[in-house]
């Protein structure tokens, strides 16, 4: 056989071999077990370390805060929704407690958005005391207890 062809056949075989070798390394072992995805996907996710402790675990120590939260309008929220994952702190109280999110986090729900129900408390962040943090006026565990003057000044639902 002419050398041109033999060399090209070798080169092609080498490329195909590299492809299958790469597949051997790069395709996850459980891929295709049930379908076009990793069969172990759920197991792998289940094996991830637990980061959230849950509201009940927080209430075991932070009874007062939990009670206030249960009575306020944020009662539907979990503690860790604002404070961040606290499993490590719940396991060992000596571990630093998670820090509450900043004001931008409040705006995820309370920034004005036309598609939100009109009665839902919403503000234009740029107009509503832009230099202050939300928690300086609003008590996050019971947000309706905001200081009288502040809540009456501009916290009404914004109408556009």
């Amino acid at each position, binding site marked *: 056989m002419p050398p041109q062809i033999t060399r*090209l056949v070798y080169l092609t075989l080498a490329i195909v071999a590299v492809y299958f070798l*790469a597949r051997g390394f790069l395709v996850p072992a459980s891929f295709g077990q049930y379908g076009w995805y990793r069969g172990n996907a759920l197991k792998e996710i289940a094996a991830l370390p637990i980061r959230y402790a849950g509201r009940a675990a927080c209430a075991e120590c932070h009874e007062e805060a939990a009670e206030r939260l249960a009575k306020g309008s944020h009662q539907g929220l979990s503690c860790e929704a604002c404070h961040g994952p606290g499993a490590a702190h719940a396991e060992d109280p000596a571990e630093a407690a998670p820090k509450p999110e900043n004001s931008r986090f409040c705006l995820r729900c309370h920034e004005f958005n036309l598609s939100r129900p009109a009665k839902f408390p919403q503000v234009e962040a740029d107009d509503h005391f832009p230099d202050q943090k939300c928690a300086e006026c609003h008590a996050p565990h019971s947000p309706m207890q905001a200081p009288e003057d502040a809540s009456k000044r501009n916290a009404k639902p914004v109408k556009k």
Partner: protein
Amino acid sequence: MPPELRESLLEALQHVQGYIYPNDVSLGWSVVIVVYPYITGLVAGAFILASLVRVFHVKALEPTYRLSLLTALAFLIVAPLPLLVHLGHPERCYEVMMTPHATSPMAIFGFVYAWYLMAVLLLELWFDYRRSFVEWAKASAGFKRLLYRVLTLGVEDVSPAAIQLDEKLGRFITVIGIPSAFLLHGYVGFIFGSVKANPWWGTVLMPIIFIFSAMVSGIALLMFLYLVISRLRRVPVDMGCLRAIGTFLLSALVLDAAVETLDWIHRLYEAEESLEVLVLLASGKLFFSFFLVQVLLGTIAPLAMLGATQVFKERISLRLQKSLYLVSSLLILIGVFAMRWNVVIGGQLFSKSLRGFTTYKIALVGQEGLLMAVVLMILPFLLLIGLVKFFDPWNTRETPPATT
């Protein structure tokens, strides 16, 4: 809602007209997706021009044969980059090839691309250049010697029998390459043509329109490059070659214009419910890029100019002929880009309600901005400069190309 998102939404809402669904306000495919079919079209067109020499023995085109192949290679290397830029996460790009799914157009593109690059273009280049590699390796030193030697793949036989075999195999590869080039670019047309929910795209003529426009743009690019490079090299332009390119370009342009006109006649005669919005789109939002750039500047003007070079070739001076070829090739390149723009962007400007329009505002910077598109368009030319330096398409003698 994050303030910046709200800002952009409020701004976008000022630019919509009529009834538009919320998910039709902003465009999913931006200017980089315009660049993508443009580049693959140039590859296919350049390759088809080269194949005219190999398969159909059009001797007049020989001066551009190797340049066509190198141009196709330079643009083919850049072809997947717009997709990588658009999709993000380039570190995961291999996954589509590692676990390909038969129903995934992206995965199939990976294989069509790999086939075209490795089984067609590189093979054809190798068979054509092997003799030169052997001779250049002997006549050069250092890195270049090593490069040329590696590229010979150890086959250093340059006997007439071996060269004849190279020729034969090269022609065989080109015969396979023509349908492959059609497949590569027909696939791009298929991506749009198969979107049955979009009346601007969803036509079976789309792959054919893309193939013809690819041929037009590729041949125009080669004509432009041949004229510019001859000027830079200070060598006279081979008028026989230029006229041959001009004839093929004119024929391809006539075919392309005919198919696109046919598409419009078909749409107008069928007069489906979407026609009204499509006519409004073409005559309104796309008036500049469709009627003025694509039709007038990119099709009618070059048709007239190329036609004039054919009809009055005895009566007009060579200088004027060259100018007409240069201007018409440039206009065609701009026109085909406008065609890609009209397909990709135009197809997203009207709402699925068929009752409203949105606006595409091109960003200057950013992942999908104008600058990125410009970089993606410049990149293949830079690559081509490098390829021409190392694999001098005009040097078939024993001296290696001077790369300094």
